């Protein structure tokens, strides 16, 4: 379980303190699909980065299996991200000089992961493109490769930051469904401003101006 306790993230903007997140209390239960909904600039992505250890709260705690991410070293947080979390970002970030399969293997670059990676690409319908370079794939195919990368190694949580932003609605829904169907026993935390993308979510929380709305 991942838990935010009174987590805040503030930064200085031209000398003025701005809160990206403010006193957030939130639990991500094991295996659940949690949707975080909110308008642009409401702090959704910041909350996702806090929960996933990409950012450290300026106050409060982020607890992962009883340990506070904020008190860990950068290296330990990185290790948790690599070994236990998966990520899908707004843009389908792939390394241009690696094939689709090699990009998936970035999440777990062991020879033993190769068959799992191929299996995932097959499930996501891009097995035939596994040997292609990213520039030879369409936007939807690229994002599917990113989904495969996020799912490789059966992570305990997959964090998706507006994964449909660069896709049309149909492709977007497909990506969300693929994430939801293939995540196994892991949790899925997805940030979006589009409620239609969260039809399969077990729970949806709303964020407004950095605070969880009632």
């Amino acid at each position, binding site marked *: 379980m991942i838990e935010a306790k009174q987590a805040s993230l503030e930064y200085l903007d031209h000398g003025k303190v701005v809160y990206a997140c403010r006193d957030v209390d939130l639990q991500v239960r094991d295996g659940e699909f949690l949707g975080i909904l909110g308008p642009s600039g409401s702090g959704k992505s910041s909350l996702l980065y806090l929960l996933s250890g990409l950012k450290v709260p300026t106050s409060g705690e982020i607890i992962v299996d009883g340990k506070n991410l904020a008190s860990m070293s950068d290296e330990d947080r990185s290790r948790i*991200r690599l070994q236990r979390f998966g990520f899908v970002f707004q843009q389908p970030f792939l390394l241009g000089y690696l094939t689709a399969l090699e990009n998936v293997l970035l999440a777990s670059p062991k020879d033993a992961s190769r068959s799992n990676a191929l299996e995932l690409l097959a499930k996501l319908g891009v097995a035939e493109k596994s040997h292609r370079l990213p520039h030879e794939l369409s936007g939807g195919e690229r994002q599917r490769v990113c989904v495969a990368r996020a799912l490789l190694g059966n992570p305990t949580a997959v964090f998706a930051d507006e994964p449909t932003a660069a896709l049309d609605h149909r492709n977007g829904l497909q990506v969300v469904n693929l994430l939801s169907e293939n995540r196994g026993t892991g949790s899925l935390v997805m940030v979006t401003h589009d409620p239609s993308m969260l039809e399969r979510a077990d729970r949806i929380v709303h964020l407004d101006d950095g605070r969880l709305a009632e």
Partner: protein
Amino acid sequence: MHVHPVEAAKKAVLRPLAASTYLRRNAGKTVPLTAVIMLAVLLISGIVSLINSIPYSIRTIYQYTQQTLAITPRGDAEQTPKLVADVKANAPVPIERIMLARAAGTQVVSIVGKWPFAVLALKQPDMQFWLDRQGVKSLDGRLPKAGEPEALISEPVARNLNLKLGSNLLSPNDNESFSPFPVKVVGIAKTPMWLMLTNYEYVKANHFPDVDVMLAFAHTLKDQDTLDRWASKHFKGERAQIFAYHQLEQQTDDMFNILYKILNVVIATLVFVITLMMGMLINIYLSQRLVEFGLLQALGYTKRQLLYRVLKETVSVVLIGWIFGVLLAYGLLRVTKAWLMDPRAFALDPLDPTAFLYTIPIPVAILAVASLTLIGRFQRFDPVGIVERRLV
């Protein structure tokens, strides 16, 4: 035969984070970097080898003087017997042989112009001893006869001056290699030493000055050096001029000292410029890879892992460039030696260790600059900015 795409992917897959994967898949960037280092190594080792070939040539051409101490009485013929007696009485090492000699002058061709060379004139009983001391095992033709205008030369001299048996080594028509009669080559010694030998009687009868030179031989090279150094001190201020190999070495070192200082400045400048250029290129390539580093860090790779990986790539490029540069330089210097230098008997060492030592600052400086650049950039790096596309 049909190959399943998944099977094909299995075969084609590379380790995604291996330095070799990046280098292979980005040959358009890594090959030019490697080529720049190769050319820099080639340039520096080539310059140093060619400059070193000058003192190397001097030492090679006059190496025969290592076997003997020569003392002239500065034009006073009556001094020579006194010098002989002095050496016999006071030499710090046993003397194997002392002989009287004369010399005629000629020139050999070097990569930087003509250099003077002595045609040593010996009496018949001394000729074979001298040739033995120079390590001559065999010769084409024969030794010069007493009183006849004849000479023996060695193979490098024959190549350098394009002489054969029957050619004239000295001639009345040649101002630089003058003799009143044409002095014909009657023998060519098979040795890498540079040697010119004629007979004492002919030079005494036809060449100025009418003064004997004393040659003193110790039993071993070590003793010879001791004798030479002793003579340099012992006869200082006397009417005696010493010709010894250690003096030649000293004069060569002194002569090239300033040249080497200039060379150091030139090479330091070259290394600086190349390092600056490489540092800028590496920085540009790093900037182009910010998304990659941001993504990998977001996925969970630590800065240390990323730094280690990029340093491995850099070390690979620099080492490959340096090694291939050294090999290329060696190959081209071999070709230069075979096609340009050897036919003229010019000296060039394609394996000159100094030349390759001078290239070491290139990889060291590039690695240092690349490491500092990488460390600096990684310290200020924010992966969230990258995945949010704020920093690209």
